């Protein structure tokens, strides 16, 4: 029912009488009304894929959420290892690169005398890892800078609500969440209990040209 712009409304008998065009307009409204009244509304968050008779395209935000695109930078998280501790080795790269200077790290050292598995392959770990989410400009440079894939922005949440400013200062317990990640090159795999082959435990750049 595309409108023909070449038609002169003042010469069209239906337009002149006005009532027929009025009824046609009412028919459009009525059709939409009936379809939306009786049609079950599809709550699929990707609106273009919605099925059914209902024409409503609303996404009711708190209950229904549009999926974030893959590259979306959300709230930070500290990536855990398989044993639940952060992958972070307290190298200060993210804190250094951060243009907003919102990351504060205090490093701790594994006791060399300790015979536990981690201490023999990793020197340092963060005792304090704090991100001030109010200062963060969500540029993603910390993720780029991290050599250990220990910080990510893939939580797909944004603008969490807090009652105080101090609440936005996220520490390790708040940051450490999400699925654990491990790479074949992780030094942590070189601990005794690990079953990974020795060559996989090498850092990736040492394996270049190795064949």
């Amino acid at each position, binding site marked *: 029912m595309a409108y023909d712009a070449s038609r002169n409304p003042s010469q069209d008998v239906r337009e002149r009488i006005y009532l027929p065009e009025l009824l046609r307009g009412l028919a459009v409204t009525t059709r939409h*009304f009936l379809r939306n009244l009786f049609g079950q509304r599809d709550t699929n968050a990707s609106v273009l894929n919605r099925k059914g008779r209902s024409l409503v395209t609303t996404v009711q935000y708190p209950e229904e959420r549009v999926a974030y695109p893959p590259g979306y930078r959300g709230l930070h998280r500290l990536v855990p290892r398989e044993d639940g501790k952060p992958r972070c080795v307290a190298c200060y790269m993210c804190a250094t690169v951060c243009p907003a200077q919102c990351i504060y790290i205090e490093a701790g050292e594994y006791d060399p005398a300790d015979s536990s598995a981690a201490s023999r392959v990793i020197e340092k770990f963060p005792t304090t890892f704090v991100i001030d989410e109010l200062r963060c400009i969500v540029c993603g440079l910390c993720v780029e800078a991290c050599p250990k894939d220990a910080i990510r922005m893939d939580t797909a949440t944004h603008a969490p609500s807090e009652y105080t400013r101090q609440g936005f200062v996220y520490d390790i317990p708040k940051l450490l969440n999400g699925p654990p990640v491990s790479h074949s090159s992780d030094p942590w795999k070189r601990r005794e209990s690990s079953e990974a082959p020795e060559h996989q435990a090498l850092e990736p750049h040492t394996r270049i040209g190795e064949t």
Partner: protein
Amino acid sequence: MARPLTIVGAMLFILGAIASLMGVAYFLAALLPSAGRLVQIVILMLVFVMVIASLLTIAERKWSAMMQDRIGPNRARIDLPILRDSALMGVPHLAADALKMLFKEDFVPKAANGFLFNLAPILAFGPVFALFAIVPVGPSVRVLDRVVPMVIATPDFGVLFLFAIASLAVYGTSLAGWSSNNKLALLGGVRAASQMISYEVALGLSLVGMMVAFSTVQLPELIDGQARYLWLFSPRFDLGLPAWGIFLQPVGFVLFFTAAFAETKRTPFDLPEGDSEIIGYFVEYSGMKFGMFMISEFIEVVVLSAVSTAIFFGGYHLPIGEGWLARRGLIANHPWILGVILSTVFWIKVVVLCWLQLAIRWTFPRFRYDQVQALGWKMLLPLGLLNVFISGALVLWDPSLRALAVVGLLEIGIVAALTVRGEGHPSKIDSPAGSSPSVPALTGASTTGHD
């Protein structure tokens, strides 16, 4: 299938509520013969008209949302145990709106005329309410050995009461506009006055055809006149074409509906309010005083629907099969059942016409002010005069009204043909062979959407 079932269930619930309330009205009026009129005022006006009007405030928001592919208000919720925090299709918003209006500051401008400023909402509210007094809701039936009429008042001057009281409503708006001591409000009040005076004329003329056809000005007689059939096809089951005003006087109906719509000051004719230019005659009002203006607008919608139903859609009569229904054994022995059924039919018609008005309000762009006046004086008035002459001549020629009905059906047919035929293109271009192209029916005209 959950949603259609919910909708149908809600409709049946509403029908049940209407029917049981009308049953209560009949029995209360029969039990309290000395206060029968009071019972009808309370139940018909305060319960039915008021409740429908206040539900229309939420219906306008919800229905307009559906017409525009939105969801509409659904955030106000009452956490009842059975309903599991359901939005109840937006109805709790009614309570939220009313509470908000009640608790808002009642502001009176310093330069306003305080007395008239307070009087204006009452003057706008009262007359539209009083209009309903002459509309018969159900038939007069015997309940508990007493004939109970279901109408508040049957003055001899009938429809003339409608015209008289309807024109009183303009005092409320004009006084509101003047007493606010605000330029924009005054402009709105002046526009309201001139618009309503213009459309009074067409409003009066539009009903003359019906008065001539049934030679009465009383609504009960007009309704009983529409109960008979012009052509009866099956006397056993009462199948036929009833002598409804819409078939006899389609032009009269369009004129009446347009003029009365202009009187309600709703969107195609919302110049007195003019949300987008002047805020209108109630610009200085706040809280429940503004609420009275708003609710009186919706009461006008209900009353206009009720009057249109009574005059053009056979009032409380069923289109077919009423005689067959009345002859059933149970109903013949208990005539109040027929009364309840027919008055429920009346309210169904009223609600459907209310829906039509809201659909019109959300379909059409508003007119410019000169267009409103041109429509009133140059289109409706001459058409009304022409309609009176033609109807008068046809009634004189054929008192059985069949000639009038043939002309009326012809008019309906012409408009329907113009509406359905062609998809906005002249058929010459579409079909070189000259045969009219097969055009999908109106309801299926564009299943592709995006219109």
